[in-house]
């Protein structure tokens, strides 16, 4: 009987540990907003920029940040961009708005390669427990409509 009891306890512990884990990823449509003062239209899901924009456009995309899944635990960001865009002109970086003071801080840029429509970013320590994290994407001149397809966060 003691073996059965031990097995039951182990199963309970294992079960509670699995239940406490966050899902390893989340997936997001690009509900991004153009950064002032670019004077370009907002980039919403399925409603992108006019084809062949003559300007580089920078947008801010929200990052979920909850006690279950704090942004400080995100280890990888994958931004999917349109196949029809000139994807080598995309860049992405992780940023935060400081909770105290008037300051925003960004990490290094990640660039797209011409071989893929995915930009992979390691946010490092930019997203911290008390600040307000976001993703900054710069879309280069001449990119096609609907340039950002979405992004995936890996925890």
């Amino acid at each position, binding site marked *: *009987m003691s073996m059965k*009891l031990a097995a*039951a*306890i182990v199963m*309970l*512990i294992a*079960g*509670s540990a699995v*239940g*406490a884990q966050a899902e390893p990823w989340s997936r997001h449509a690009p509900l991004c*907003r*153009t*950064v*002032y*003062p670019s004077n370009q239209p907002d980039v919403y899901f399925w409603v992108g920029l006019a084809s062949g924009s003559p300007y580089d456009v920078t947008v*801010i995309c*929200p*990052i*979920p*940040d*909850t*006690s*279950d899944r704090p*942004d400080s635990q995100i280890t990888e960001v994958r931004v999917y961009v349109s196949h029809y865009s000139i994807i080598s002109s995309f860049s992405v970086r992780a*940023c935060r*708005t*400081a*909770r*105290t*003071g*008037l*300051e*925003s801080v*960004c990490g290094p840029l990640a660039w797209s390669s011409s071989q893929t429509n995915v930009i992979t970013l390691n946010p490092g320590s930019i997203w911290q427990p008390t*600040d*307000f*994290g*976001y993703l*900054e994407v710069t879309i280069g001149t001449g990119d096609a409509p609907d340039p950002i397809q979405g992004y995936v966060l890996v925890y």
Partner: protein
Amino acid sequence: MRLPSNVRLVLAGILCFAAAPAHAQWARHQGGECRPVSSAYQASHATTGLGSTNTSPTNTIWLDCRSDDTDRYPDSAVNEVRLYVHDASPTDGFTVRACVSRRDSEAGQCSASYTTSAAFVGGTVITISGDDLDLWKDSIDFSFLQVEIPARFGGNGFSYLKGWVTEH
């Protein structure tokens, strides 16, 4: 099968540990997620790395900010909302309030307003709590925040809604 008392104690402890939340529940949002209440404010609303701001030198703007409402963390269980702002105007302040759109009627309602004083300049936290969150207690309705950002003051006097936090 009757378990020995010490084993029952261990099992009870494990079950309690598994059921208890690991820590306080919260959600955090960058201020740029908010949207103008109406198209009248669209032209003056700007999103920046510092949050949402008002570019108008003359008029305040009102923004809507969504609440979090899920089965696990319903907004009806929120007990505090904190908004982090930078008020650059020495003649006007921020105003914030908790609001609700009723699911089964045309009615909408907002709480009392919380403000920074007109003369205050600098960074501060505006906290909504207590009875003023009672509006969110009905679990079927749609809750949100409204924030008024002062007009820009002088050349560099932009005021910012940097972000907000809900605590359950």
